[in-house]
């Protein structure tokens, strides 16, 4: 499937997930955005050799995903697809970092492997956090939350309008791409000249569309500012959830829960 078609499907799929009505979906988007940011900062602030301490964050994510009705399979597929850069860079760590940090019986594990694992874990956690955010909130709501959190109006408007027209442009691009593909019989890909021509046409149509939209705006009294609806309301439940989640995240960052659990278990054993 061409990249443009899979991109379209991805967007619509996440959009559909976001239209759900679970307890996570019903939270105020600002709570979700800030919690997601806190999550990422906590994970990323771990030291390079930390692995076990990050795992409770995975449990946290799993719980949120279950409550929010997000299929784990989709997330894992996405993780695999987007991992190359992090994996490629992280892969060098085992070759460069040889000092032993862990002794498992007679097996010496080097810092390089541990930090590589840490990188993979970081990647998985941060990427999943974002997918969970968008799948339980929806892009429009995220933008409204950002606007309320202080992002300049014109940037929030830009985000909203971009999202609104992404589907239209993807569809147009898909059509042109398919039309060209159907007429090219031997080659599998298109050369730069054809590409530039295709893009040029699409660009002209886009600019024309921009002008028509502008006209439509003027006809409805556009005066330079677009007013976004502001009907977000924080409920006591939102505050409670936010504080609870925040405390859990900070606690997980501060204390190595995996280690505590392990200590607890090993102390129980004879």
């Amino acid at each position: 499937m061409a990249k443009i078609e899979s991109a379209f499907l991805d967007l619509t799929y996440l959009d559909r997930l976001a239209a759900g009505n679970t307890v996570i979906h019903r939270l105020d988007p600002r709570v979700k955005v800030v919690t997601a940011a806190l999550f990422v900062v906590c994970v990323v602030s771990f030291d390079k050799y930390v692995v076990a301490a990050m795992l409770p964050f995975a449990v946290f994510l799993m719980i949120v995903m279950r409550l929010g009705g997000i299929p784990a399979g989709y997330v894992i597929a996405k993780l695999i697809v987007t991992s190359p850069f992090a994996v490629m860079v992280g892969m060098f760590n085992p070759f460069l970092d040889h000092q032993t940090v862990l002794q498992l019986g007679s097996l010496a594990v080097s810092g390089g492997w541990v930090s590589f694992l840490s990188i993979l874990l970081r990647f998985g956690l941060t990427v999943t956090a974002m997918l969970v955010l968008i799948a339980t909130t929806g892009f429009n709501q995220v933008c409204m939350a950002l606007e309320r959190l202080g992002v300049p109006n014109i940037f929030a408007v830009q985000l909203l309008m971009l999202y609104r027209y992404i589907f239209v442009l993807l569809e147009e691009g898909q059509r042109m791409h398919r039309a060209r593909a159907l007429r090219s019989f031997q080659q599998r890909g298109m050369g730069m000249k054809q590409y530039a021509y295709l893009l040029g046409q699409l660009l002209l149509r886009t600019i024309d569309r921009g002008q028509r939209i502008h006209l439509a705006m003027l006809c409805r009294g556009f005066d330079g500012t677009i007013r976004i609806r502001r009907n977000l309301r924080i409920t006591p439940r939102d505050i409670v959830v936010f504080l609870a989640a925040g405390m859990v995240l900070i606690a997980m960052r501060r204390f190595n829960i995996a280690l505590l659990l392990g200590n607890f278990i090993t102390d129980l054993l004879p």
Partner: protein
Amino acid sequence: MHMSDALLSPAVGGAMWAATAGTIAICARKVQRDLDDRKVPLMGVLGAFVFAAQMINFTIPATGSSGHLGGGLILAVLLGPYAAFLTIASVLTVQALFFADGGLLALGCNIFNLGAFPCFIAYPLLYRPLVGTNPTPMGIAVGAIVGGIVGLQLGALAVVIETVGSKISALPLQAFLAAMLPIHLGIGLVEGLVTAAVVSFIWKARPEILRTAAEARPLGNLRLKKVVVGFGAAALITGGALSWFASSNPDGLEWSMAKTSGKEELAAPATGIHRLLAAIQQHASFLPDYGFKDGGSQPASTAQPPPAWPAVDKGTSTAGLVGGGLTLALAVMVGLLFRKRKQTP
């Protein structure tokens, strides 16, 4: 290349976000004051265009690999640097959220790397002077290629500095640079060629579009440019310094705390809570090498970690592994057990 959260430290990420946020604020104000309110819908649809364009690949001749338009330079040509920066930022935001291209923290880096360099350096300092107010196909080609190459090289350089500065990856600076820069030279060349081709197409088909874009002044005044470049430099330097500080001492905050407050504060937990926390803290580290987290046998003011680890406390390691394994199992369990509760979208 997009920066990833997995390789980023909070210090570097935070610094870049500061730079990006500041730039967004400046650009927003500039665009707001712009009298041409056609820009508002145009920014939206052009952002969607760039997004869609990036999804279409072409084959690069002689290599067989595929490439696509980045879009930074062409947006700057059509919208001017400020509006273009906001547009690129919005495209990257959508990519980060939906396609995990980067991450929430890395988004600050990516917006700056892929937005600031084309918009505030490549376009006004290279493309505009080379193309002039009366574009010719050759002028456009030269301007776009030079702009593309420089923009992407700077972007690649920034990614390397951010990665090395974060100290999560073990890649040394020179090796990383040696890998990234040549690759991005090629990518920049391709970007420049594609940009040139598209801009030339527009110039031939509807020259008035480029004419109106060319009439605007690229950057308000020299001072602003210096501010923006200064932002970027400051962010990189601050981030680098902070992360060096943070990582050369495993827990920089505690180290500095130990240094300034002395041993007594750490060795004598006052109340029950403190004793509990101290006890937890003793076990809280995977690597019991940190002097002040040890049973107390090492002086708290040891600055550098010894190169060879002393005998690792087997108990801690086992416990760590057991705990880690259990937590992982728990995560998987939650995932599997409650699958039945999944609501179909």
